[in-house]
């Protein structure tokens, strides 16, 4: 289980438009509380006194409506449900639209060890960004041995034994203008059961590569920022293996897939032997994958043309044969 505290949430570095813009305005002792799921609760019902099925393990979000209701309760000096609300082990409460709770509410939260956060974002926008972030954090994850590169916009995961030439292949691909996401260890995340997002296991060490004979190289410095990427959806799996003359390799383009974290990923097996230009095979595989996404299957179309040609040929033969009988 992933441990994700409220402090981690505040610290999380999100890019530009996804920023949560959170600020802690009270209950600092509660920042160590952890989140366990990616749900968000709007506590309208609990505030009105109805606590059945109250999802207290989720982030409690106060939008404009909840904040107005909180004010009304305070004006009526009706603190019973607010006090009961804070008696639950709530991970945190968030006030949207830059709403300021009264000092009494903050002290109640403080006393119960629950942090109070504030964001200038509107509740709908905040909910969207937060769910996206939490989905990613609580996603099922595995770390595998391989290299993730982006080739013509397709995320290609290279796998294979140590020493088969994954890193060298990736190096050649980068030289040709493609991008590296991670060398050697790739962390894969199942995002909402739909896609597989791959990234480096560690941001500090990502974009370094070990090449036998040269040692460890910093690719950002060697090739420039244009040659790297932080994360990318895995759309194609390329398995490199030493050439085995007894094995039957794919010759006509039948499609293989492999399940990773329950998500099917198209797969090609590429045998490697000295003198074989693996990078160009991978580039071609990536182009072919893009064509398939556009609905054009080279192998199938080829087969279709062969079939219709054979058909027309046999029709002509029939005609010729008939002529001969005259």
């Amino acid at each position, binding site marked *: 289980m992933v441990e994700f505290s409220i402090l981690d949430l505040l610290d999380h570095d999100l890019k530009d438009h996804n920023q949560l813009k959170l600020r802690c305005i009270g209950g600092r002792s509660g920042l160590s509380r952890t989140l366990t799921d990616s749900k968000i609760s709007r506590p309208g019902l609990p505030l009105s006194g109805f606590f059945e099925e109250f999802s207290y393990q989720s982030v409690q979000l106060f939008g404009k409506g909840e904040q107005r209701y909180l004010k009304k309760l305070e004006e009526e000096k009706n603190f019973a449900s607010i006090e009961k609300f804070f008696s639950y082990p709530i991970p945190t409460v968030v006030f949207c639209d830059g709403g300021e709770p009264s000092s009494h509410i903050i002290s109640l939260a403080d006393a119960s060890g629950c942090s109070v956060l504030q964001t200038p974002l509107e509740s709908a926008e905040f909910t969207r960004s937060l769910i996206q972030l939490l989905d990613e954090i609580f996603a099922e*994850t595995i*770390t595998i*041995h391989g290299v993730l590169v982006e080739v013509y916009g397709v995320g290609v995961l290279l796998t294979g034994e*140590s*020493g088969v030439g994954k890193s060298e292949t990736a190096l050649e691909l980068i030289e040709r203008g493609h991008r590296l996401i991670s*060398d*050697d*260890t790739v962390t894969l995340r199942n995002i909402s059961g739909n896609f597989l997002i791959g990234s*480096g*296991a*560690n941001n500090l*060490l990502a974009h*370094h*590569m*070990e090449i036998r004979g040269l040692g*460890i190289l910093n690719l950002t410095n060697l090739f420039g920022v244009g040659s790297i990427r932080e994360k990318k959806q895995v759309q194609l799996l390329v398995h490199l293996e030493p050439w085995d003359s007894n094995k039957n390799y794919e010759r006509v383009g039948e499609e293989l897939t492999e399940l990773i974290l329950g998500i099917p990923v198209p797969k090609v097996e590429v045998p490697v032997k000295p003198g074989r230009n693996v990078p160009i095979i991978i580039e071609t595989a990536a182009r072919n994958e893009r064509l398939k996404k556009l609905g054009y299957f080279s192998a199938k179309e080829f087969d279709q043309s062969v079939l219709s040609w054979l058909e027309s040929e046999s029709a002509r033969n029939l005609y010729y044969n008939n002529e001969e009988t005259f």
Partner: protein
Amino acid sequence: MVEREVEVLNRAGIHARPAALIVKIANQFESHLYIEKDRMKINGKSIMGIITLGAAYKSKLTISTEGVDEVEAADAIEQLFLNRFEE
């Protein structure tokens, strides 16, 4: 498959040199070597993989070997940890 629990005993943790040493020893055997820390499992024949584990002083790792010479390989790697990577 052979599994062993090991601890990082050298002060500096597993940096580039110890990682290279592990890979060098691991490559003398035919068996596969995997090293696991927290929820991360990596191939023990890859330097970058081992460094990525971020194994600092006193961290506990699980090594596992699989193959024809798995016992010898596990022994050799365990010995390396006990010797503090000759540091």
